[in-house]
Each structure stands twice: as C-alpha cells, then as structure tokens.
C-alpha cells in the first residue's frame, strides 16, 4: 500500500466543458497505436449515459463488505466507446460546395456524445460537466482483479499503473473498474489507463489535464500535505467529494459538487429549489453533498458581502501555481 497519496480536486462549478483537458491528455498519451478510441481523461455531460455508454450500470467495484469484487461487463467499441471516426476534412475544407463536416463512417456513440443534453423540462432544464479519469483508488478493484499482479499502486504517490510487460490483456481489470477507466488496446493486446502523468509528476510538473485547464478547476496535491488544496478541500472544508463512493474503491479524484440556479414555478417565479436535484448529486457523490453545498453557499455569501473567505480564495485560485503542490516530502515549500 502507498504511504502517500497524490489527489486531484475538480471544481465542477468552474468546469466549462471545453475539453482542453481531454485534448491535453489525448495528444500526450493516446493519439495512436490502437488508443484512438480511448480517452484516459474525458468530460461528459450529466445527467447522461456517459462514456463508455452506461458505465454506471456496467458493474465492478467491491461488494458492500469490501471483501469480494462485484462482476462487471466489458464495454464494446461501436456501441459503448464509439469508433474513432475520420472526418471529411478534405471535402469540407478544400473542395467546391458547402459540404458539412461529418464522420466518414456512421457513429453510434462517442466520448462527448450527449454534450449539453442534460435533463429536466424548460424552463428548468439542467446539466453540468463531469470530467473523468482514473481515480487512482486507495483500494483499487482493478489491482485485486488481476491474476497476474500486473497492476500496482506506487508507494510514493499512490499512482496505480498497469505493467505493460506483465499485462496479457485478460481484461478482468476492465470489468472490475466501476468507473470503466481501463481500456483494452486491441492492437497491443494489453489494457491501458491514465498514468496520472507520472513522468511529469516525477519532475514536479502537474498532470497535463490539470495544468492545461483553462478554468482553473483542477487542484493537485498530496492528501497528507495540510497546506495543499486537496487536504484543505477534502478534509478541512469537506467540499470535495469522491465519485460513486459506494463502490468501495476509495477514489482519489474528488469533486466540488455543482451549485445551480433556482427552478421556476408555473407562474415563472423562482422557487428557491436548485435545478440540479440534490438526490441526483447524492447518487453521484454520496451523503456529503448537502454539507458541501451549504458550505459553498455560505462562503459565497460572505464573499458577496465583501467579507473574506479562505475557501473562495482557494477555489478561485488567483495564482495558477498555487493550485499544484507536487514537491516530495521534505522538499515542500510551505
């Protein structure tokens, strides 16, 4: 087991769904050699079936006693991930006529298929963006599922990695991951996943997805670093929550749940009830949602009245560099 855990906090109130994180990751790690269909990081619109399609119904994770793995199924390329289609750029950009940009093969699904769809009826429709990546879980189901000990969790930072020399593509890990964040590369015959940009982390550089985030929505620090954003948001302020904690894997990517504006009643008057139903957020982020949203609202109110709010200053992230504390123990700047 790891002695330290590097954690990421994603503020869903700041994510604008621009997919800069997705592209930062893709261009760095997954743009070739059988990885074209896979997105180690992606942003999906919620509510929705997500990517891969219906991942929340695809099983995996631990039984509630935490001792036995739940069965899971393997997503399919065309129906669940979506084929990595080519587009008719040549016809659209360089030929006569007004040909619209279209995939050259029929697509059934994709990593951003339901963008901005959401749920609810006008004028009370709602959606929010949920960036997703490997959670580098404290109790990884993938690691337990592998009969070959090909998956390990690093002691120094808790990063979960698949040893590409040991992996033989059996895909028990793909089924076991309740987030479906492990992908089988059919060309390589091995399973692959987000590596939390460990070669960057080892040099003190934040993950590409976090560093490139234009919304300053992603904080990265070690969970035991009390000056770091992860410790402060997760343990001190309790506004950052794990995704689907009921699977028992103890994920280490945390989310600040989204606030939403009031719904309107039939007469067009605000009801004071948030558009995103609390129940839905609880189904995603667990019982801590109510407390987290209350704290956020209280601190926003303080800031609005001109008072100081340490929490708001932390989430606003006035200085980009303050969002990341990657120094190893002993070399941490205070």
């Amino acid at each position, binding site marked *: 087991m790891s002695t330290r855990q590097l954690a990421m906090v994603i503020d869903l109130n700041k994510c604008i769904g621009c997919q800069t994180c997705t592209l930062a990751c893709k261009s760095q790690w997954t743009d070739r050699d059988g990885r074209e*269909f896979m997105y180690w990081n992606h942003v999906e619109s919620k509510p929705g079936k997500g990517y891969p399609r219906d991942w929340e119904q695809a099983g995996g994770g631990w039984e509630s006693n935490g001792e036995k793995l739940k069965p899971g199924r*393997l997503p399919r390329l065309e129906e*669940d*991930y979506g084929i990595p289609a080519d587009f008719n750029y040549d016809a659209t950009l360089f030929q006569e006529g007004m040909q619209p940009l279209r995939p050259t093969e029929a697509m059934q699904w994709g990593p951003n298929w339901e963008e901005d769809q959401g749920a609810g009826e006008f004028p009370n429709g709602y959606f929010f963006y949920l960036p997703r990546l490997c959670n580098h879980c404290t109790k990884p189901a993938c690691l337990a*599922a592998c*009969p070959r000990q090909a998956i390990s969790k690093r002691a120094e930072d808790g990063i979960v990695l698949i040893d590409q020399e*040991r992996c033989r*593509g059996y895909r*028990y890990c793909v089924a*076991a991951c309740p987030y479906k964040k492990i992908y089988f590369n059919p060309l390589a015959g091995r399973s692959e996943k987000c590596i939390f940009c460990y070669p960057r982390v080892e040099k003190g550089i934040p993950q590409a997805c976090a560093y490139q985030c234009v919304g300053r929505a992603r904080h990265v620090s070690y969970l035991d670093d009390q000056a770091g954003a992860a410790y402060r948001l997760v343990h001190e302020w309790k506004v950052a929550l794990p995704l689907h904690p009921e699977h028992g894997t103890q994920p280490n990517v945390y989310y600040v749940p989204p606030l939403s504006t009031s719904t309107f009643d039939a007469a067009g008057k605000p009801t004071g009830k948030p558009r995103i139903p609390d129940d839905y957020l609880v189904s995603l982020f667990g019982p801590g949602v109510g407390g987290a949203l209350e704290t956020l609202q209280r601190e926003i109110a303080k800031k609005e009245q001109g008072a100081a709010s340490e929490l708001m200053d932390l989430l606003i992230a006035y200085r980009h560099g303050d969002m990341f504390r990657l120094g190893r123990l002993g070399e941490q700047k205070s």
Partner: protein
Amino acid sequence: MSATIRARAALGLLAATLPLAALAQEPAATIQAARAAIAAADPDHPAWNAAPASVVKLETAFPGHPSIVGTAVAQRLVVKALRSAAGLAIRLEWSDPAADSQKTQHRFADGAAIQFPRDGKSDTTPYMGGGGRHVNIWYWNAARNTAENLWADGFGTLARMPTQDVKASGHHADGKWRVAFFRAFRSSEPRAAKLPATPVGTQPLAFAVWDGANNERDGFKAVTMNWQSLQWAR
C-alpha cells in the same frame, strides 16, 4: 502477494475444487510421434493424414484466482504428432462452431496451448509448474495466428521467453479448429523444453483450449488434468 502465498492459495483452491484422487485416475493418452518430412507449422500438410490420432479428454481448469469463474466449453481434443529431422510438429483439432479471431475490446480470441515440463520429467506439476520446476508453453491465439513461446513457474508467473522459435498456424473450417505447432529439436533458449535430438522414450506434455465466445482467457480454459505422453517413433 508473494509467490509462496500465491502458490498456497492456488493449492487451496485446487484442494477445494477437485477430488485429488480423480486426477491420478484419469488415464493419460499416448500420442505417437510418427516420422514424416515436415518442417513447418502447417495444419494442412498431407503428412497429417497418415499420422495416428489420439483423443484427449479436456476439463475446466481449476481457478488459480477469484477472477477466474466459469465452465470451459471444449471437452475433447484430437492430437497428432510428427517428427522429422528438422523438429517436432504437433497438430491439435477440436470442435468450435465459430471462429473467434477478431481483435476487439469486448471479445476474446480462441486459443490453444501445449505445455512441457522443462526438464522432461512428469513430477513437475502440470498446473503451470511451480517451486522452481518450470514449464514451457507453446501458445497459439486465433487473433494473431502465431505462436508465443512462454514459460511459467506457478500461477500468475507466465512470461514470454526471450527466444521466440516456436511456429504455429491454424485455420477454422467445418466447425473445427486445426492448429499446428512446430519447433526445431534444438532451441537456443535455456528455459525451453529439451527435445531430444535422437528421440527415445517418452515426453510428457499437456494441452489447453480456450473458447473466446465463452470469454475464456487466462486460467479460464479447458485442459488435460494430467501429463499426457508423447512417444517417439523409432
């Protein structure tokens, strides 16, 4: 998990899932390696027609890990062997209504394998070897239609050999797979099965078949529960 703990866990599973006495009683097939001029992994080589066939019974392997669950499909295997001055050829034939040879995210490819105790002695455990007694495995997979030369020293230890000098080729027709393997008698790989240059006596070997349509992969497979015996023709 250390190798010792893994081995103990595997033995525990073995004891729990199989009556050990039944293992010893299962008769081993004798496969005659007939002489022929063959020097390739060719499942359609005319020399196979005259080679004596042995039928080998397959059973679901006992699971070496909690992830491995299910009953394997294949129940019997027809084995033929040929030896030439160049080396040893073995052909496996079994029923499988559909060929699973696609490389896709959610499906598994059919496969077959031949296992040898590295030292040629039948007191090596036929369940992936162990305790320093290595096995050499020739593995064929329908998605790649080539052989992998592998070795193992117990559950979860399977690894590729540095030397890939085993050939395999298969094709599916009339609801059957026919897969031929070939290796020269001499291999430069120190962990490879020692095949005698002047073959006398017998050589223990074991077999496995995977049905991809049944999600079989890894230890989820149909296997011979005991070493079988390859007899070198004079």
